[in-house]
Structure formats: C-alpha cells, structure tokens
C-alpha cells in the first residue's frame, strides 16, 4: 500500500543524482529489499512503472534485488552519457 510513497522516494533520489551528474541520463535504478522490510517488490515495480510512464524521467527501469534482513536501500544507478544516447 505504501509502495507508491516508496517509489516516490526512489524517484526523488534518482532526480538528485541526475542533478549531481550533469550530462548523464539515469536509465536504471537498483533497490535492495529485505524480507523484513515490509515492502512488496512486485507492487513497488508496478507503482514505479506507473509513476515513470509519461514523466520526464521515462524511460527508467527499476531493478529489485532481494535481501535477507530489513534493508530498504538504493544500491546503484545506471547512467548513460547524453552524447552516447544521441
């Protein structure tokens, strides 16, 4: 149920990284979700895709990695250099 809010926090973090790395475009973000984190990966994926679709951040993929404890971390971000895209 709160996966929408979690997706929103991830997108904010991605936006922050985009500003820190001018000339780059985020294409994929990875999160690590522990089995006790209280966040459902599928539901998060659904919310994330719904929020990205049609936004200025599209296309942006979410990659979910399962973890053991209560982790709820952003692990890494894939950045493409803008020249490379064009």
């Amino acid at each position, binding site marked *: *149920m709160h996966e929408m809010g979690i997706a929103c926090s991830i997108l904010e973090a991605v936006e922050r990284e985009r500003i820190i790395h001018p000339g780059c475009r985020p294409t994929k973000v990875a999160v690590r979700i522990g089995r006790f984190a209280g966040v459902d990966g599928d539901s998060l994926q659904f919310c994330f895709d719904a929020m990205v679709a049609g936004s200025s951040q599209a296309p942006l993929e979410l990659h979910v990695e399962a973890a053991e404890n209560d982790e709820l971390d*952003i692990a890494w971000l*894939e950045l493409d250099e803008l020249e490379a895209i064009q």
Partner: protein
Amino acid sequence: MIHPIERKVLSENDRVAAGVRSRLEIVGTLTLNFIGSPGAGKTAFLERTLQLLPSGTSAAVLTGDIQTENDAIRLARHGFPVQQITTGGACHLDARMVESHLWEWRFKEFDYLFIENVGNLVCPTSYDLGEDGKVVVLSVAEGEDKPMKYPGIFRKAELMILNKVDLLPYVPFQPELACEYARTINPDIHIIQCSSLTGEGFGDWMAWLERRRIAKRHFSPNHEEAHLQTTFV
C-alpha cells in the same frame, strides 16, 4: 556506467526522525510507536494506560488515522494532551508528521509520548518516527500466525502486546503458539498478555513502562534527579 549509491530509500524520513529523536532525548521523553491492525485495540490499550498512570506523570498522545478525530476524542477524555494526525489516505505515519505535531507542543518535556500509528501491520514498519521503541499490538481474534505472516513488524518491535485475552474462552486461539511464532521471528521480543477491557495484565505493562522511563531518564542529560533516583532503587 554503473554508479553505486548505497543510500537508504527512506533516508529523508530517517534524517527527520533523527532530529525528532535528538530533541526528545534532550527532554528525556520516553517515546513508543504502537503498531497493529485496525481494531487490535491500540486506542483502548492506550486509554487504559492513561487511566493507570501514577498521578503527577506527564504524558502526551499522537494518534494517527486515515480519517476522523474519533481516537483523539476518546483519548482526550483522560486529561492528557492529545493530537490527532489524519493522514488523508497514507497508510502510515512518517517522521515529518510527528515532527510538525510535536512543534505544536514546542517539544515540551513529557515523561511519555505515545504514538498510535495508522492501523496496519505492514506499512508503518518502514518509517522511523524517532521513537525509543516499537510496540506491536496483536489481539487474540486475529489468529496465532500473524507474526509469521507479517514478520517485519514482529522483527522490529521490542514488545508485543497480546490484547483481548478476555476473549480467549470464545475464540479458538492458542496464546502459547502466537508467542512461539513471535519468538521465532524475534527471539528478543518481550511479550505481555492483557485485556484492555478488564485490565488484566496491566500490572506487568505499567511496571515495564516505569522501568523503561527510569532507564531513559538515567541517560538523558537534563535529569540529574533521575540519576539519584535510580541509584537508590
């Protein structure tokens, strides 16, 4: 190009929660975050707790719901300051909501701050509110297996309140099994069985609360007299 980040998804919430925690630390207020399903008896449990607090104790309650002021009205009857947080749809409280309501009280010193989270066993688990501990409230009509089905909150709570034990003669529920499941998830969890209707079990709870409060005061910078008190206990 892969760029490692290694940041908590809820780092912004955690930052605000850390601020709330350090303010509450300064005034030595023991803060507990109550989490349980809708109807588990969180409000009833807190109402009875307020009734049983020794005179001279200061306490305040923040109660979260998606809609209505009902719980705040129930809790305010006991003569302690209460604020309702209506989330307008969100299934959990976050640190910013708690912070802004505590500003209404100017982060005044209380012995206890009780936070009743929005009824939900999942979502509130992820959000640190700056509390000293999480308390999970489970009632006997919900089934013994809830700790296995919703392990997150049972893992993070330091205390489990097994409420509505007065209903045990009427519902097939094995308290020992529920406790065993909770300990499978969290071997350190402390468990108190009680009834907010009859008051059974509240002696243990009030004693637990008092012990936690003294320990908290002991480590708070502002409470020399608490140091003296605990030395002689």
